């Protein structure tokens, strides 16, 4: 009998929880008070890092807008939707944001979840602005789907050109993380670029995400001669891969995309990643930064114990600002209306550089920052403008 009481208590607690959460989402907000912007991302789970940083950037943008008098005379407010890095939950969360009448959904830097949220936003005619989904086939999912990140299709060729012409690389080893869409897609972009600028791929190796033993692949690499490694995966594997290379006595450096960007790269990789190169659409480069960017960096540091902002927070900031500017231009927070203005964005200046949307709504961003690990820090090696 005693046990049953616990059970009832459990059920009662859960139903109470339902009521509480149900009430929260059901409250009727009159559309006139505020303009709501939805955040879709993981505050918990595997990809929480991206989600938390994106949200920080968004919150700073909203603060700036509200301090400057709001948007169309209204306050802007963020509605948070945490999907716990879980795909089937992401669908419900997106749906929930839409029922809360957000003017736009901003978020998830991961391509998979963006693709999942896209059809829901599209069919409800709500703008989805992903602050980082770099994979292929994203904006094709509908004309309400946007992204504001540096595309690898733009950056990788520019960087390859630099490797070939300035660093005189002739031969490379190409390492892909199979099972990781980001990495596979980046590899498929690098291959024609390497070919175009006359760099030969002497060996291709595959690794797995969350893997930590690369001795087999590195042993295979050791049999070849090459100038450097093109690594298309994430920083965790990249750092461990370089460690294994040094362990086996190989001294080449690697170059890769912004998947390698994270302090973990040198925290895990230590000396092994010194000299490794990473390109990105945003870098804390106080010497060359424009006023707007400097301002963002300072504000971020003031709020976060002097920590430096990363790509995700900067893209989150720009995403909100892009939407806000389109709303301002259209004088309406209705997605079906301001979308027209958003599409026309040309040479828009954000904290991450200049953004234009091309005919397919793909962002063309300039410049590309090439960073280098130096004394356990990312230092800007060169800034390459994108001319196209």
């Amino acid at each position, binding site marked *: 009998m005693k046990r049953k009481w616990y*059970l009832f208590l459990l059920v009662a607690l859960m139903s109470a929880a339902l009521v509480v959460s149900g009430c929260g989402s059901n409250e009727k907000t009159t559309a006139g008070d505020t303009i709501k912007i939805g955040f879709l991302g993981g505050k918990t789970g595997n990809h929480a890092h991206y989600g938390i940083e994106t949200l920080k950037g968004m919150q700073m943008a909203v603060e700036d807008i509200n301090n400057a008098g709001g948007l169309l005379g209204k306050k802007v407010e963020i509605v948070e939707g945490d999907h716990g890095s879980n795909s089937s939950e992401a669908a419900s969360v997106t749906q929930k944001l839409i029922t809360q009448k957000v003017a736009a959904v901003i978020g998830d830097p991961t391509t998979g979840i963006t693709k*999942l949220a896209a059809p829901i936003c599209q069919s409800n005619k709500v703008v989805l602005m992903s602050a980082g989904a770099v*994979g292929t086939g994203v904006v094709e999912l509908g004309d309400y789907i946007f992204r504001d990140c540096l595309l690898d299709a733009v950056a990788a060729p520019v960087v390859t050109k630099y490797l070939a012409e300035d660093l005189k690389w002739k031969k490379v080893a190409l390492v892909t993380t199979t099972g990781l869409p980001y990495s596979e897609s980046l590899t498929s972009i690098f291959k024609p670029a390497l070919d175009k600028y006359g760099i030969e791929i002497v060996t291709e190796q595959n690794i797995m995400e969350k893997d930590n033993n690369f001795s087999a692949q590195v042993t295979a690499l050791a049999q070849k001669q090459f100038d450097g490694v093109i690594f298309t995966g994430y920083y965790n594997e990249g750092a461990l891969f370089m460690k294994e290379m040094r362990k086996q006595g190989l001294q080449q450096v690697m170059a890769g995309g912004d998947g390698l960007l994270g302090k973990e790269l040198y925290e895990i990789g230590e000396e092994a990643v010194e000299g490794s190169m990473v390109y990105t659409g945003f870098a804390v480069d106080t010497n060359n930064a424009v006023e707007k960017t400097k301002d963002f960096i300072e504000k971020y540091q003031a709020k976060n114990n002097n920590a430096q902002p990363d790509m995700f927070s900067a893209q989150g900031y720009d995403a909100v600002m892009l939407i806000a500017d389109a709303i301002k231009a259209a004088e309406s927070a209705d997605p079906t209306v301001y979308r027209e203005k958003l599409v026309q964005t040309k040479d828009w200046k954000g904290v991450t550089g200049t953004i234009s949307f091309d005919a397919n709504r793909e962002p063309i961003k300039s410049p590309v920052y090439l960073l280098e690990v130096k004394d356990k820090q990312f230092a800007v090696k060169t800034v390459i403008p994108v001319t196209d």
Partner: protein
Amino acid sequence: MEAIFDFFSNPYYIQILTITGVYLIAALGLNLITGITGQFSFGHAAFMSIGAYTSSLLTLYLHTPFFLNLLLGGIIAALFGVLLGFPSLRLTGDYLGITTLGFGEIVRVVFINTKITGGAFGLAGIPRETNIILVYLIVVLTIISLYLIKNSRFGRGLVAIREDEIAAEAMGINTLFYKVEAFAVGSFFAGISGALYAHLIQYISPGDFGFSRSFEILNFVVIGGLGSIPGTVVGTAILALAPEFLRFVQEYRMLIYGALMVLMMTFRPRGLLGGVDLFQVWRNFRHKGLREKI
């Protein structure tokens, strides 16, 4: 009344109820395999993925009608159930469990390495065909099928295998064949569920159907009460909705979810409705009610 109307006009609630229904179909299939026939299966999500990919690929490349694709998703999943079942159902208990788990992982890795399924990128742009009415219609059909099976010569054979396999054999039941059949039917429902999932979420990737999803479905069945059909319904409803209920505790959500699993098991080791005959409970209730009236 208005509250109910509000509830059903809120797409967010519709969405989570629909996805719960989709999981319920898979869970009912697993209940047939694990609850009624007593065979461990730790790779149920793999059959969901087979159904999901089959139906999505047919829709995207051959443009065949949705209902046909849905059905084919179930049938192909059932065929794989048979294919896995014949060699592995000779194993028992945990050995069968770990083999099915291995099968699930192999299926996932194969999907990652296959071009036409989009590899690890997954498949996007699957048309939305699933809606709440269709899902619950299939849920009802699934429940009816399970009741029909449970109360038939075939179903008695399955229960006999669960209770005592050697005695079941001695009763003239071809145990291997029956187990494979149960596996096929369970996988069929998983395949249907997967196909519905694909046409609801509109994007699938191999990672959506890993072993954690398999265990999630097993959770629904065990916590509801093995072998009990209402139990599976209750278990799935509670556990599939729990992460949504628990949203208010934010990042402590999964912490509480994990603790709840342990608590539920320690307080009701046979599951919420395990060993409870609802008809009996209802009769007792009515009986009592009558007596009080007199």
